[in-house]
């Protein structure tokens, strides 16, 4: 199997971006990724775009509009969309472009102007089936709240444990210059914040952010060992679940993500993820999402994630730091987050995270969720090549 590496990453500042439109944000991320990779637009063999559902921006096929800024004109170019996991799915398609031997260097880019959407949660209601589920006022807040309620009922997880996730993420985001929300919060403040959909409160929830991120993937000459900008792709797994929430064995346990994680570990030859991985970026649009991801990727047993948080394992200076960037909870450009998790994991491997850097990272994990907690992906990046 051909070894493929991330040789450059780019991110915009996340938040309300009145100064730029969607295309300009794409350009911003693409430019900084190409600059870091030290290559020109002409050296990019193909471009893969991960964009969120069309309804968000009321545009049928923004990939067509963004072809120029994505450096894609006259090149093989395609757009991937699996909702929140668009970025990591585009990443795996980009990996296949290079691993197949057809290309030596490709660009993967994601962008989303969430502020173009007047009512995000009303729109999220329309991802649910018009006949069976849409009438129940389901949206991403109530959907994750259902999962949180079930987690509390089945495993005794507490609101305070969820609040602790919020506290650590907000603290970590203070060290991330790209983060949207950069504010310290306490458990007490989280507990007293407005209830959106019980048990999820305002400070258990992500903001609406604009932003873009990009990675350059390469093999062969362009990915030279010893370079400062190199994170090898060691493993990837992806899986999907049924559409209807009622069909899941447990809404609060992501079976599909566990399958994706196993596939990624198998490819990366990882036997004990908790020991062999030094840092993880997990998607957490709501605090409960992080708890569920910790279990599904195998860092602890099913139902034990509350205890995992209590023990401080996930803290920046803990045994297995989770979300040193502050993750989705502190910046949520919805269709971009999946790629941003990979960007942050790659930066940790490259040792480029400044104040949010975790010491001695050999292997990092990036996880995401898409659809109605329906799609899950796991990417493993590392300092060493895995395939010979």
């Amino acid at each position, binding site marked *: *199997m*051909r070894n493929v590496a991330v040789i450059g990453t780019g991110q915009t500042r996340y938040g309300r971006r009145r100064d730029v439109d969607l295309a300009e944000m794409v350009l911003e991320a693409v430019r900084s990724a190409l600059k870091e990779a030290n290559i020109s637009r002409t050296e990019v063999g193909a471009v893969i775009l991960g*964009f969120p*559902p*069309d*309804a968000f921006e*009321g*545009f*049928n*096929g923004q*990939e*067509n*509009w*963004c*072809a*120029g800024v994505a450096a*894609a*004109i*006259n*090149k*093989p*170019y*395609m*757009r*991937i*969309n*699996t*909702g929140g996991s668009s970025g990591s*799915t585009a990443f*795996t*398609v980009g*990996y*296949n*472009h*290079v*691993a*197949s*031997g*057809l290309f030596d260097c490709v660009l993967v880019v994601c962008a989303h102007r969430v502020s173009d959407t007047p009512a995000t949660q009303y*729109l999220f209601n*329309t*991802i649910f*089936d018009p006949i069976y589920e849409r009438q129940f006022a389901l949206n991403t807040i109530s959907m994750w709240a259902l999962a949180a309620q079930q987690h509390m009922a089945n495993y005794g997880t507490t609101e305070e444990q969820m609040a602790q996730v919020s506290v650590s993420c907000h603290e970590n985001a203070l060290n991330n210059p790209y983060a949207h929300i950069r504010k310290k919060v306490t458990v007490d403040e989280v507990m007293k914040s407005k209830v959106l959909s019980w048990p999820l409160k305002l400070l258990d929830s992500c903001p609406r952010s604009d932003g873009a991120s990009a990675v350059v993937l390469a093999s062969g000459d362009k990915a030279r060992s010893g370079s400062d900008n190199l994170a090898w792709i060691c493993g*990837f*797994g*992806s*899986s*999907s*679940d*049924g*559409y209807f929430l009622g069909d899941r064995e447990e809404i609060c346990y992501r*079976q*599909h993500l566990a*399958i*994706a994680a196993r*596939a990624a570990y198998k490819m990366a030859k990882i036997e004990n993820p908790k020991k062999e991985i030094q840092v993880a970026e997990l998607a957490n649009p709501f605090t409960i999402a992080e708890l569920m991801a910790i279990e599904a990727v195998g860092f602890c047993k099913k139902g034990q994630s509350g205890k995992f948080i209590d023990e401080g394992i996930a803290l920046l200076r803990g045994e297995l730091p989770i979300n040193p960037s502050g993750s989705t909870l502190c910046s949520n450009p919805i269709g971009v987050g999946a790629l941003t998790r990979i960007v942050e994991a790659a930066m940790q491997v490259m040792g480029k995270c400044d104040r949010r850097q975790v010491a001695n990272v050999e292997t990092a994990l990036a996880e995401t969720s898409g*659809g*109605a907690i*329906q*799609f899950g992906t796991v990417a493993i990046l590392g300092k060493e090549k895995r395939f010979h």
Partner: protein
Amino acid sequence: MAAQDVVDGRSLADQLSVSAAGGYRKKAVRVCNDGAYGLVVGCLEILSGQSDIVLVTAWSKCSEGNMNIVTNLQFDPFYLRPVGFNEINSLALQAARYAEKYGVTDYDAARISIRNFSNGQLNPHAQRKIEPNEETILKAKVLSSPLKESDVCTYTDGACSILLASDQTASKLTDQVVRIYGFGWSTDSYYPGDRDLSEIPSLQRAASQAYKASGLAPAKIDVIENCGRSNYHEMMLLEELGFCEKGRANDLISKGTTSLDGRLPTNPSGGIMVSNPYVASGLVRTAEIALQVSGSAEERQVNGAKIGLAHGTSGPFMQSNCVVIMGA
């Protein structure tokens, strides 16, 4: 998978269909371009060694909404959308430019419609049936000059699936293997003002990538299935694919070269004029070529077809194009 949200009227078009497409608890990827891109993604998954067997599915449910509004939303909100562009009138601009540049008439264009609708009569999957004679075709309602109802693609509900497997696995599974010799895909500028609308350079690039990968020249192709959105677009297409010089496609067609019994039968299925499940159309073209080169195309079979070329397109003004070359 390949599907578009706005066409299906669902905010995330693959959520409902992923399980039906066999993706339950499996790796699932959705492209928003044409179905032929789905085939490319499937091929890359196998070539990279990630999977051995891949199912590619593309669909569109065009009857969910008004396709003029759906395609108006393809244009940017600042410059093009307020002008009222939609697929039909944008195609008409291209057709008018081509017709003016090379002196192509309604009568010339009608030959392609007659061929497509007459081939469509042999295709059990055909949706639209128009009497394939000059009089009916020329008298059809004008939608946006020079394009008449009989000159352009229709909109259809439908889906298509193709099963791909690696070389070794394929020969274990079946005796009737269709081989993918090469594929290519490319994109043009978005704004029509940045292009000469009588040309589709991305198609030329996609085709040369596919010819190079397959080691074949245009002369080796026995049959074509294309997604020319109108008959004028088919003329541009034949030129970009290298079957004749710029502006000479009309000669090729008037000589009957593209007829079912000609040297280069084009759209033996009737193409997207007779049924166009929009995003799925490019995948349908590859499926039709697979049937042709394996000799399973029944009444619409082209005699002795060994190597075929399929084409898919997406984006306004046929901005993105994909070419797949296959053989038995």
